[in-house]
């Protein structure tokens, strides 16, 4: 009886595990070209940039960011109004359509890193974890480029 129950529970757990790994939003996500600029000390906020590609057949929703380099990290959007005034605000959830790519790049979306825990030094890297609406996650290593860097290829 106990043996049967164990088998049943094991099968259930495996099925559960498989269903999660099949349906997890993170499985369809490819994150590329993650970079950031070097900082002066830790008092100023930093920004990280990357592209997120949804390779799957369903919508995927990015809900948050985790990292140990900052006490607070949020996805922000910079925008410029018709008077030429720029502002920055939390972008909320980011929905990515099937086969679509969302780019976090200078002047638009960025990961805002507030309360840096250590200076961002050129040549080093840090980890960033993207959290999706089903709780699944993708971690990516962010290269720290020069202070005046413009992107991962330039």
């Amino acid at each position, binding site marked *: 009886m106990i043996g049967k129950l164990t088998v049943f529970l094991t099968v259930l757990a495996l099925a559960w595990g498989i269903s999660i790994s099949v349906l997890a939003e993170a499985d369809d996500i490819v994150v590329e070209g993650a970079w950031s600029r070097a900082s002066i000390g830790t008092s100023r906020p930093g920004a990280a940039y990357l592209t997120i590609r949804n390779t799957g057949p369903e919508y995927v929703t990015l809900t948050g960011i985790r990292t140990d380099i900052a006490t607070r990290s949020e996805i922000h959007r910079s925008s410029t109004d018709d008077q*030429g005034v*720029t502002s920055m605000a939390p972008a909320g959830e980011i929905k990515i359509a099937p086969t679509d790519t969302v780019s976090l790049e200078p*002047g638009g979306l960025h990961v805002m890193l507030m309360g840096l825990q250590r200076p961002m030094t050129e040549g080093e890297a840090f980890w960033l974890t993207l959290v999706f609406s089903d709780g699944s996650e993708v971690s990516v290593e962010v290269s720290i480029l020069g202070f005046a860097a413009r992107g991962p290829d330039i």
Partner: protein
Amino acid sequence: MQRRQLIGYSAAVVGALCLALFAGWWRVDGPGAPAPAGQRPLAMSEMDFRLTDHQGKEVDAVTLIGRPSLVFFGFTYCPDICPTTLSDISVWLSDLGDDAGRLNVIFITVDPERDTVAAMAAYISNFHPIIQGWTGSSEQIARAVEGFRANSEKVPTGSGDYTMNHTASVFLFDANGRFVSTIDYHEPREYAVPKIRRAIDKTETG
């Protein structure tokens, strides 16, 4: 046959009319419209503010007369737009080669509370060496923003922190201190260097 010709003529007339209307709109209300008089930055000689450069020297707008100038606003706690603008400008200055040395390139902070002279010096040292960083009292900064007909606004971001909304355009002036044009943030980058050259040339032809 005649009927068809008539339709053809009417179509041409209507087409021409639409084109004329479009051209009119473009120049008067559309993207080709000149900036309204109240929105154009003042001439350098009419601006009234006193600031300190990143080396601790007292400066004002009149300091800039004699060379073509690029002036822009920002703050060093700005993680996205400002480093991008400074790095864009650094690239334009490199593209200009020796001509870059004939320009004033001024970054004025809209956040004097955090951007001290030392902070400005440390920050701009990471970009093209010709770029100067100006700061000063909040009152004098406000007068500078007003002189350029720019905008800035302090926005709280929670936990006592704040960010600044601000005009991100780069203002171009000729060597006589007269406003020439702006380079807007979202403008294609290949327009920038010719615009700067025009400000330099305008100075030479008067």
